[in-house]
């Protein structure tokens, strides 16, 4: 067990972690802004990956072209999800539980629909940067580096959107207080639709970036959803950079624990950390007070 192995595991941990972060940010956005735990988020991620594969193989577009098509389509799917399963329930008692159920219904529709349409098999998404090079004694795959870089870019873009633009500020205001947001004339329905579109597009981006590394298949969203929950909870709701830090932390902890201690108890270890942190700091590690 040399240093190069350690560095290799850190590299895997960081790149996986960045992917968890990208996935979790969308989950966190909807949770924070609309107050919905979107159980279909994993399926949006899956649809993003499957669409990229479909567009790439049938229309013959290159990786970036099919990525853009898939992201745009998924943004629209997100708006549709909001319109069908969330908007009618606004203001109903038990909103959180009911939307949990309606998004669970959506996830069943998407997953089983995907199995029927595309079959329950893994698809390979090819990229122009799949070669593996050796850097400092560790194996670095181009796909992982590109995933990491694009995620950093997407997170920064999202951060500037949320803090600088008027629309982004309206999103944040609605997350802080829906009542206050209505008072200053923000149309909540449009904000929620925007939140869903944004979150679904981010989920799709995560799926597209990860499919070349982990393949695309109809069940891929299920395991990711649970990882996403842990990330959001560790980060504290609505904190983008918190999601990044929590995602990186989970990715690192997972790969180091898996390599050095036990690969069998990897998920249990992640959840154990989460349980302890939740008990010590119930609002997450990066939640600002107030």
């Amino acid at each position: 067990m040399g240093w190069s192995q350690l560095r290799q595991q850190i590299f895997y941990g960081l790149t996986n972690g960045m992917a968890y972060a990208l996935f979790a940010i969308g989950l966190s956005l909807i949770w924070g802004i609309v107050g919905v735990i979107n159980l279909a988020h994993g399926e949006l991620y899956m649809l993003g990956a499957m669409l990229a594969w479909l567009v790439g193989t049938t229309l013959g577009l290159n990786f970036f072209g099919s990525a853009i098509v898939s992201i745009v389509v998924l943004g629209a799917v997100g708006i549709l999800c909001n319109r069908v399963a969330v908007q009618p329930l606004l203001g109903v008692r038990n909103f959180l539980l009911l939307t949990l159920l309606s998004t669970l219904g959506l996830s069943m529709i998407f997953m089983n629909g995907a199995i029927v349409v595309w079959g329950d098999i893994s698809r390979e998404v090819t990229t122009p940067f799949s070669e593996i090079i050796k850097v400092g004694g560790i194996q670095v795959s181009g796909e992982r580096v590109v995933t990491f870089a694009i995620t950093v870019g997407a997170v920064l873009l999202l951060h500037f959107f949320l803090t600088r633009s008027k629309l982004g500020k309206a999103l944040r205001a609605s997350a802080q207080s829906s009542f206050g947001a209505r008072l200053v004339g923000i149309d909540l329905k449009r904000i929620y639709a925007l939140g869903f579109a944004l979150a679904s597009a981010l989920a799709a981006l995560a799926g597209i970036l990860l499919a070349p590394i982990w393949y695309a298949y109809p069940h891929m969203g299920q395991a990711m959803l649970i990882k996403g929950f842990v990330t959001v909870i560790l980060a504290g709701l609505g904190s983008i950079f918190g999601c990044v830090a929590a995602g990186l932390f989970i990715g690192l902890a997972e790969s180091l624990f898996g390599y050095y201690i036990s690969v069998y108890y990897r998920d249990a270890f992640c959840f154990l950390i989460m349980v302890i942190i939740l008990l010590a700091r119930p609002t997450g590690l990066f939640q600002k007070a107030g």
Partner: protein
Amino acid sequence: MTKQRWLANLLLLVVAILVPTIFKTPYLVHLFVLSGIFALFSLAYDIVIGMMGQFSFGHQALWGLGAYISALLAVDTGVSPWFTIPAGAIGTGIFGFAMGWISLRLRGAYLGIITLGFAVILQEVIINWKTVTHGWLQVLRIPAPKLGDTALNTPFSYYYLVLAFLLLTIYFIKSIQRSRFGRGLAALRENEQRAISLGIPIFKYMVVAFTISATLSGLAGALFAHYVHTINPNTLATSYLWAALIIVLVGGSGTLGGPLIGTLLFIFVPEWLRMAAALRFAVFGILIVVCVVFVPEGLYPRLLSLWNRFIVSRVKG
């Protein structure tokens, strides 16, 4: 209870007892057995969701734990299922007590996620602690309980076992709801601050209710194990949680009739949807969304209000 409600309940009870004679095919009775087991599980889940107004995403672990304790005792030590089934329930109750005592400091989605954490950890332990749990090799040939010399291994005989447990559970939950404890839980569900100010020891009440819910979930899981005869780590999968969630919310949470109606729909509608072939579960998903959006309070409360509007008012008028 009005006279009409009382008569309706009596009629339902008679129908429930006659189910195996009305539906003579083993497969249909089998579906009713499953309904009974899932109804028990959903009633247990609804103690947390409906009576207490809290979240749990960890009940699949309680269901699975009950199944595992009872099955392993029966298979590996040869104890009679009549003892292992209660042992499964009680063991799960003890685990549920610890889980509730640790988790119930949190509220809302955080409570949901921490209970999910317990479930994931327990499932990995069951997968990997192979010397005790058999891991992915499954627990096979789980014996059915015996009455005298006859094993209750047909849907017809097992149906009455499940029905007996279900009726006991319904009676038990009903008497909780009428008790001081149950009213305390209702107060806590409606307004936590006010319940505290009234001097209700809410943490204690919640832990006790969670423990009861866990015990009943374990019972349902144990009954399931001795009916299907084979369990594996997927018995702790989230699909069982989603089942309970769908049943409780579609039927109507916080009521006794809701989980019962919800279960019958949950078991029989997918069977009926077999004509949709591969699209079966996608169609089921569509039905769930439609149901939540158009009947958010649940089917049972909606049916009750329709009943009151059309039947009762007409009788009086």
